[in-house]
């Protein structure tokens, strides 16, 4: 009898598996939706976190880059201002790098050896550690430890009562002393010993600043950056300040903007300008701030308006000066006359005398004299007021007082006369815009979370976010496994029938894993879109347009891809156990009748 050949069963090509899977998913749409929704949630969460993290990092970098110029400028303002504080010195010392300009400057001012500077630098770093400790602890604990002392006083105090201090630090709960007590003892001693060195640096610096100021005459020191590069560098170098030529153009631009902005803001000091600007900004005169001014002039119309207003103000001041001058001339002329002559003029009803009433002070006095209201006073009435010698003497006295007052006014007006605004409209707008942008950047920078962009965390996540993501994935995996297990249970008979028809265990396994992966892919797609939108919106909420301008498109696309893969892998992994259960199912289950 012929032996029948039994060979290995062929396995189904993957394309056919996918086709069958999609048919199945479409048939069981509701059950599939559960898996899809679960994966969507997890992927959306991951994508939200990724988008926020990437956008935030990008914005942070951009903000830091864009504020670099201003920071450099501020640093130089600090450097060129006399009287460096010991806290500033400590910051500079602790951040000094060998071979840098800062090191050379410090060496030069203090006349130090580089070994001494290295020691100072190490001490400054320790000092900042101790100060940070004292800042971070409870304010109550702090006052128990060091009272109300600040800065270097603290370390002076520690020299006298270190043991008491150490005993008290052992008792406080809100922080622990960096290093051992013995280290602090050594530090306090060394810190006191090196005090003369630090003072030498401070004196050297003060001398350098005053030397530079002398050379610059009355011009503000920062205007050094408005001049020639070579000249500025040479001038600074003569006094021990070292400036990289690379930094000069940045400083020049910053100083330029600063100077022009100051010109615009100086308009606030003038009374009439202040009034009209307050009216335009719709605030009370006493409430107007530089912010309002810059807002007004950050449009071209505003810039034109302010130039016109400056001209109008100048004209009106000039007119006032003119008027004052005329009145002074009149007063001088009349004051030359004796009392009798004034009486004669009054008798003749000379118009010259009537002109006196245009001077406010005299007008008030005359009105008072006649018991009339000031605004009702007619020019002829002055002649009635000068009836008699006595009255002429009184008028002369009034005239003298008015002259003194007016000449004072005149000086005031001449001094307060506005300089013409020598900036073009374009420049005004540019300055205002730059300034306002810098202000908002500084605000954003201040609000930036400290840890963003430091590269300390995985993908920019804090460890807490990382945990949340892992937990969300675990929960999601459990959900998918549950959904797939139910799907397997519901399809016992179908699976068994398939096995009776010749399906291999591997086919059953693959079809379930594939089904789950496809659902994972669908969920991933939806999740990526939702997550991206949410994450970006969150960043926009915090940073506004800056976030939109800094969208890291490639990075976001890559993370979208990664999220998709993560969703698929998650769904596939979660389906492994249910698929295994299905594959293990005995084919005779198909015979069972419910």
């Amino acid at each position: 009898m012929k032996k029948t050949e039994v060979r290995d069963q062929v396995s189904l090509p993957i394309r056919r598996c996918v086709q069958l899977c999609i048919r199945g998913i479409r048939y069981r749409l509701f059950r599939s939706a559960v898996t899809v929704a679960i994966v969507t949630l997890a992927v959306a969460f991951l994508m939200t976190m990724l988008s926020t993290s990437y956008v935030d990092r990008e914005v942070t970098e951009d903000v830091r880059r864009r504020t670099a110029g201003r920071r450099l400028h501020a640093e130089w303002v600090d450097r060129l201002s006399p009287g460096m504080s010991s806290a500033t010195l400590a910051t500079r010392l602790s951040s000094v790098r060998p071979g840098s300009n800062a090191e050379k400057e410090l060496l030069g001012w203090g006349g130090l050896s580089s070994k001494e500077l290295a020691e100072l630098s190490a001490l400054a770093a320790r000092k900042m550690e101790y100060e940070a400790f004292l800042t971070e602890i409870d304010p109550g604990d702090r006052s128990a430890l060091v009272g109300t002392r600040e800065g270097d006083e603290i370390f002076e105090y520690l020299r006298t009562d270190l043991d008491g201090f150490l005993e008290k630090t052992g008792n406080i709960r809100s922080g622990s002393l960096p290093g051992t007590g013995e280290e602090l003892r050594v530090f306090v001693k060394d810190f006191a010993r090196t005090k003369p060195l630090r003072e030498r640096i401070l004196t050297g610096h003060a001398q350098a600043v005053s030397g530079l100021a002398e050379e610059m005459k009355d011009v503000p020191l920062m205007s050094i950056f408005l001049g020639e590069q070579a000249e500025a560098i040479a001038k600074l170098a003569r006094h021990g300040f070292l400036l990289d030529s690379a930094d000069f153009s940045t400083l020049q631009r910053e100083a330029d903007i600063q100077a022009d902005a100051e010109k615009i803001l100086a308009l606030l000091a003038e009374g009439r300008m202040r009034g009209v600007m307050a009216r335009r900004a719709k605030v009370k005169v006493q409430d107007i701030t530089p912010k309002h001014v810059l807002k007004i002039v950050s449009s071209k119309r505003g810039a034109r308006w302010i130039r016109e207003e400056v001209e109008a103000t100048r004209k009106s001041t000039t007119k006032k000066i003119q008027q004052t001058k005329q009145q002074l001339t009149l007063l001088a002329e009349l004051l030359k006359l004796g009392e009798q002559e004034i009486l004669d003029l009054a008798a003749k009803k000379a118009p010259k005398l009537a002109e006196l009433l245009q001077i406010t002070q005299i007008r008030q006095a005359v009105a008072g004299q006649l018991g009339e209201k000031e605004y009702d006073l007619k020019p002829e009435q002055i002649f009635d007021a000068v009836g008699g010698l006595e009255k002429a003497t009184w008028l002369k006295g009034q005239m003298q007082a008015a002259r003194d007052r007016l000449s004072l006014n005149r000086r005031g007006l001449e001094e307060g006369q506005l300089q013409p605004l020598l900036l073009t409209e374009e420049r005004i707008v540019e300055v205002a815009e730059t300034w306002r942008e810098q202000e908002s950047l500084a605000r954003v920078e201040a609000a930036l979370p400290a840890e963003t962009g430091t590269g300390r965390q995985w993908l920019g996540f804090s460890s807490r976010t990382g945990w949340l993501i892992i937990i969300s994935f675990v929960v999601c995996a459990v959900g998918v496994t549950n959904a797939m297990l139910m799907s397997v249970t519901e399809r016992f008979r179908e699976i068994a029938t398939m096995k009776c028809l010749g399906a291999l265990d591997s086919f059953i396994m693959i079809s379930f894993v594939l089904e789950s992966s496809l659902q994972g892919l669908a969920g991933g797609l939806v999740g990526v879109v939702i997550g991206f939108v949410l994450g970006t919106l969150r960043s926009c909420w915090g940073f506004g347009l800056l976030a939109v301008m800094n969208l890291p498109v490639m990075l976001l696309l890559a993370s979208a891809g990664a999220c998709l893969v993560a969703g698929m892998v998650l769904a596939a992994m979660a389906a492994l156990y249910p698929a295994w259960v299905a594959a293990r199912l005995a084919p005779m289950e198909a015979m069972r009748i419910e």
Partner: protein
Amino acid sequence: MANTPDDSKPRQAPADAVDPRQGERPVIIRTINLKKSYEMGQVVTHALRGIGVEIARGEFLCVMGPSGSGKSTFFNMVGGLDSPTSGRVFIDEVDVAQLNAVELAFLRCRKIGYIFQSYNLVQYMTALENVTVPMAFAGVGGDEARDRGMGLLDTVGLKDRWFHKPIEMSGGQQQRVAIARAMSNNPQILLCDEPTGNLDLKTGGEIHALLKGLNEQRGVSVICATHDHRLIDIADRIMWIRDGTVERLAERSEVVVETGAIEGKENE
């Protein structure tokens, strides 16, 4: 063999089938002292207590017995769905116990066609797709599978309804599709587990006729577990199982008289 099922086997089969009672036809299924017992806790249930039977190629065997008699267990053994505790099953001279999972899948795919009481069609597939599933498992796809599937649907009289889903068909139609599916890889054995259990008398009769037709025209061995006495009329042999043993194994000619008598009595 690439040809349609009509060619090779049916020609052999009638030659063999001229006189089934000669007993000279090749044996397709042979069981030797088949035993199966289940342990449930400390109680051991003996589902089969030693069944030895030979089923010839092209034979129509009807298996009868009350529920719990071991009928289903016997079925699973013969269909290569379960392995015996002791004893052996040869299908086409191959010892089923020796086969690994992949070879068993091959066997189930091409040697045996299964027909279930509740049809077990895949709900989301059309009639034609259901019929071509086993072909796909056997590595036949595309136009060839479609043509063969349409041929089979024609055989069961459902050619016009190939695009219908199971839910759109009556029970009898679904069972016909199931029969077409069982035949899709030209199996030598059709295992039917109460094929008419869910159908009314008339439709059940049609299914019986269809099975008999396949048996006669294509030479397929049909093993049919049933409670339906009308099958006795068309079976070659009838096997009664009770308490895990063969109670009686008889040729149709020996039985028909009796049933006739029984029916006669009932009719009176």
